[in-house]
């Protein structure tokens, strides 16, 4: 149960552009144990999607993983050959994407897509793959799996397509599922239903999930652990209770303040002042100091210790997770 499944250690991913190198990830540490649901939370541009791409080694050009290590079940993913990596993708780690309207190929029926991908990843015959497909379509609460298999993506609604994607990902029987904001593109009502379905299956099968999102509410409902990412670094890591009840890093606190609360309906919505730093030229010292309400002079010069992604820690000079 507490066996580490995925260990990311000091991961640096850079994008070499014409106007200089962008340091998208600056030493990310994160551990996902078997059967654990970890939420990776951050603003746009904080590096959450790049982290996911780095795990699968699918960083878009001109990006490259510059330093660090990623270990899955004790296997170093960064030293695998490209064909070795192709076997990891889908089989060991699979990904559910954000936009259900584009995540299925419009020219093939659901049947041929599910059979192709499940058969490919599990070395199954078409008949076996089809029975797995039907099984998981039922699991995601699809009313009539046979008919869904015969349809084309444009005949399905967004929520249905996303459930097909989830069924497909589950059908691969992966060790780790990376979910890149799989519900943000859906209506709120549909979002709730898809979330519930996914959560039930994940809990029943004790799956490990890395859930990437900017929505803290979703994370609270779904995850065991939370990693808050800012400017390419995990600034705070801890259990859901640690993060919501005893946040240590000022950024986490500010982030929690921005959640609209129906009880405080009369208040104005809170925003975090300033913007995400330009990663071509990140601020010196602690990257959050220009926006931090508690910043001290030393924050400008000294870089705080990074969290190791194992227990509740905050990467902050001023606040310590243990004191909270």
């Amino acid at each position, binding site marked *: 149960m507490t066996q580490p499944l995925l260990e990311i250690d000091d991961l640096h991913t850079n994008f070499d552009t014409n106007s200089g190198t962008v340091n998208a990830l600056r030493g990310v540490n994160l551990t996902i144990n078997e059967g654990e649901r970890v939420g990776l939370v951050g603003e746009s541009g904080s590096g959450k999607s790049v982290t996911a791409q780095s795990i*699968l080694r699918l960083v878009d050009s001109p990006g490259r993983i510059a330093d660090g290590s990623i270990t899955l079940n004790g296997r170093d993913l960064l030293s695998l050959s490209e064909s070795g*990596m192709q076997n990891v*993708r889908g089989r060991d780690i*699979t990904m559910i994407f*954000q936009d259900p309207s*584009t995540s299925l190929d419009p020219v*093939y029926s659901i049947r041929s897509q599910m059979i192709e*991908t499940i058969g490919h990843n599990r070395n199954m015959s078409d008949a076996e793959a089809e029975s797995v497909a039907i099984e998981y379509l039922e699991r995601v609460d699809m009313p009539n799996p046979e008919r869904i298999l015969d349809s084309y993506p444009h005949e399905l609604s967004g929520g249905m397509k996303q459930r097909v994607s989830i069924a497909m990902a589950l059908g691969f029987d992966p060790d780790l599922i990376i979910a890149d904001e799989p519900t943000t593109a859906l209506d709120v*009502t549909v979002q709730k239903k898809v979330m519930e379905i996914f959560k039930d299956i994940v809990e029943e099968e004790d799956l490990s999930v890395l859930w990437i999102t900017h929505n803290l509410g979703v994370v609270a409902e779904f995850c065991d652990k939370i990693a808050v990412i800012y400017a390419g670094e995990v600034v705070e890591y801890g259990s859901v209770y640690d993060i919501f009840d005893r946040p240590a890093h000022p950024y986490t606190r500010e982030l929690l303040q921005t959640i609209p609360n129906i009880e405080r*309906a009369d208040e104005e919505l809170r925003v975090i002042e300033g913007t995400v730093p330009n990663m071509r030229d990140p601020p010196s010292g602690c990257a959050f100091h220009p926006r931090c309400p508690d910043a001290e002079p030393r924050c400008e010069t000294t870089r705080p210790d990074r969290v190791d992604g194992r227990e509740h820690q905050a990467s902050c000079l001023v606040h310590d997770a243990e004191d909270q």
Partner: protein
Amino acid sequence: MSERTSTEIDWDGLLEEWDDEVERISSAESRFERAWFFIKDLSSHRLSIIGGVLLLGVAVIAIFAPQIAPYSPTAISATAVRAPPSIAHPMGTDSLGRDILSRVIFGTRIALMIAITSMGIAFVVGSLLGALAGYYGGWVDAIVRTAIDTTWAFPAIIMGLALASILEPDLTTVLIAIGLVFWGVFARLVRGEVLSLRELDFIKASEAIGLSDTKIIFKHLIPNAIIPAFVVVTLQMGNAIAVAASLSFLGLGVQPPTPSWGIMLSTGRQYITSAWWISVFPGLAIVLVIMSFNFLGEGLRDTIDPKLEDKR
């Protein structure tokens, strides 16, 4: 505050509605019905109907040329040299006494064969190189783009002329020359489509589940990028016929006595003042076929283009 509680969301009601919606969508029309809708859409486009019917007629004429033509296309006659149109020779005869109508009828075979084969070559080569360039980018893309730009720097006819004069002037040469002139059109189109498809989640998903590049390119990129290329094939067929006719006209294409419309135009031009029918009828045939391809192509474009679909 009390007002807010009264507007509380009715989750169960919404979910029920949603399930009804699911039912409605999944019982959408069958594939057969969709094909029927497509044909209905296409047939509401009057020009494409005209084009389609004319092309069908041309195809029938090409297939049954020996049965339809009143004379052999190569049979010469000493008694009817440059005879004007009459009952016996509806389009007259040429300077060797050959029946123009029969030659125009047999000419459809050459014209269609050149159009289909050369476009086939251009389509296959262009789509493949375009897909590779779009998917891999980098130096592959640079080479393909440079090659496209180079072929496009020359007008189609000059390019065809150059290629045809390097190679032996015969039918194969014409096919290759036209294929090489037009491949860039498809390469550019497919490359652009692939560039935008590559950013979509289903291609990223195909990568993320470990499909090989070959599978991604042939099973997912090309089938998705190919539909607009089909439209362009139809539109470009007319151009291919025009280039083929021009090459024949200049003596660099199909050689006499093959009944090619381009050759007929070319040999008829010296008699244009005394025997206009020798060049006018093959000319009209060329115009008719090119026009039909363009009409059909435009109809296809209007029917397939999803951007126009909303307006309908």
